């Protein structure tokens, strides 16, 4: 306990003695963690988008306006017998209208419409992306089917995009982490260098290596944590501000919900910042410590 108190006192005096150095370290961690954070936000959204589009493996058959709901059972059986069909859901025009209203989140005044412009539809789930095309064209041949929509192309492209995003993401993430570590350890090295005389004296009077190291490591962790906290605030707040704006202009964009995303992103950034500070000061202090 006494030792911990000594370490904390050392850290606070060190920070008070060279506040500019601390500001430099914190700023460095903050800027780099911010880049990292924005990149993670981008990645999360891309993979969200890809997942959203890829999971939408269904053929939607819009029915003609004069479709008689009495014949629904007949039509449903016909569709169900097609190879590759997993399930059929009837979506009435009323349901579709309600769904649309919910999706638009009342941002557009649907009350202005004098009648429901939406048709009845069948949502046909298929087994895999390869079933989209045959089921789609078969359904199109059926009576009373006005139009068929299936996002085969999009789905396939999105799945490969998802893979690419993942690979590129991990590589870029690794590079970003590595460069963060390098820059931070170099910045912290300046603060360690400024105190090399203290280190010398400590070694001279018989301080153990870990005893000399700990205050520096604590300081690095603290600086990393503060920098990361600032970065997380900037990233989080700007994402919170950005998402409603985005949804206003592109209503159906499947963006990651800020609350859900930030719930794991902020702790992740804090842990990363602290670890980077710790590792950075470890690297730096070992250049001046010979034992």
């Amino acid at each position, binding site marked *: 306990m006494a030792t911990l108190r000594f370490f904390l006192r050392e850290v606070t*005096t060190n920070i008070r*003695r060279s506040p500019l150095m601390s500001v430099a370290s914190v700023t460095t961690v903050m800027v780099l963690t911010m880049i990292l954070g924005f990149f993670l936000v981008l990645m999360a959204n891309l993979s969200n988008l890809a997942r959203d589009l890829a999971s939408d493996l269904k053929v939607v058959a819009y029915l003609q306006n004069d479709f008689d709901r009495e014949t629904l059972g007949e039509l449903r059986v016909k569709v169900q017998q097609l190879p590759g069909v997993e399930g059929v859901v009837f979506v009435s025009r009323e349901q579709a209208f309600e769904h649309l209203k919910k999706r638009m989140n009342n941002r557009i005044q649907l009350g202005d419409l004098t009648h429901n412009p939406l048709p009845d539809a069948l949502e046909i789930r298929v087994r895999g992306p390869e079933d989209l095309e045959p089921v789609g064209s078969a359904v199109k041949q059926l009576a009373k089917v006005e139009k068929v929509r299936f996002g085969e192309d999009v789905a396939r492209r999105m799945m490969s995009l998802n893979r690419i995003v993942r690979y590129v993401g991990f590589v870029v993430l690794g590079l970003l982490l590595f460069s963060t570590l390098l820059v931070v350890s170099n910045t912290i090295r300046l603060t360690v260098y400024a105190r090399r005389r203290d280190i010398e*004296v*400590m070694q001279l*009077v*018989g301080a153990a290596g870990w005893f000399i190291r700990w205050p520096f490591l604590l300081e690095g962790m603290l600086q990393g944590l503060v920098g990361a906290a600032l970065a997380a605030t900037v990233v989080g707040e700007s994402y919170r501000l950005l998402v409603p704006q985005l949804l206003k202009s592109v209503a159906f964009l499947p963006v990651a919900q800020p609350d859900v995303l930030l719930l794991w992103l902020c702790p992740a950034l804090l842990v990363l910042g602290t670890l980077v500070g710790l590792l950075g000061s470890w690297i730096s202090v070992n250049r001046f410590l010979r*034992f």
Partner: protein
Amino acid sequence: MFSWRNLLSPAMRRPKATYEDSMVELHGVNLTYPNGYQALHEVELLVRKGEFVFLVGTTGSGKSSLLKLLYRENEPKNGAVYVDNQDVTELRRHQICYLRRRLGVIFQDFRLLREKTAWENVAYALEVTGERRRNIPKKVGRVLELVGLLEKRKRLPSQLSGGEQQRVAIARALVHEPHLLLADEPTGNLDPDSSWDIMQILSRINAEGTTVLVATHDQQIVDTMRKRVIVMQGGRIVEDLQRGNYAVSGRVAVSS
């Protein structure tokens, strides 16, 4: 008992410390710096417990290099270095700090922490070695009193004269109650009066039982103190005189 040393040929085995009362013992020590400069050649030396020894010689004669061997700032290429009956060349890196807690070292440039007061500088040496907190004030007070600086304990090094700063450094070196005090040109930056103060303090410490080893080229002090004088030249010990004086060593240095 098994020892790796036994696997070496007899010629390569290091001799054990030979004397029961030896404080510093060097056998066949060669020291070469990474740049290839050989600072010490086949040095043999014995300093017994309780001795006061001057190490004299011109700049570059190897005085500092020899002292650095003793507090393991340098490691010899070969040979054995015993301090307080322990072969310090066999210490692992993390063990060096325990050696240093048994030594006190002072330098020409004091090496005090500029931002800490006299008291804090001395207390720091105890704090970093994990001394119990409640023991610190008593120990610090004792050594500061010994060097006559108790009333100036709240001053920063910049508010103290050179001689006073060196006395703080001595207090710091003594606060662990070391068995051996090493001083590398302790009066190099001081005026004659202050130098004399410092030597008085070192002499008193020695009288209380601490072995003292002083590297210096202050002729007047060496001549006055009439202690054992070891003369170094070109990395070799060329003369070892009980109750010697600098004039002898000076003659040796000039005649070569």
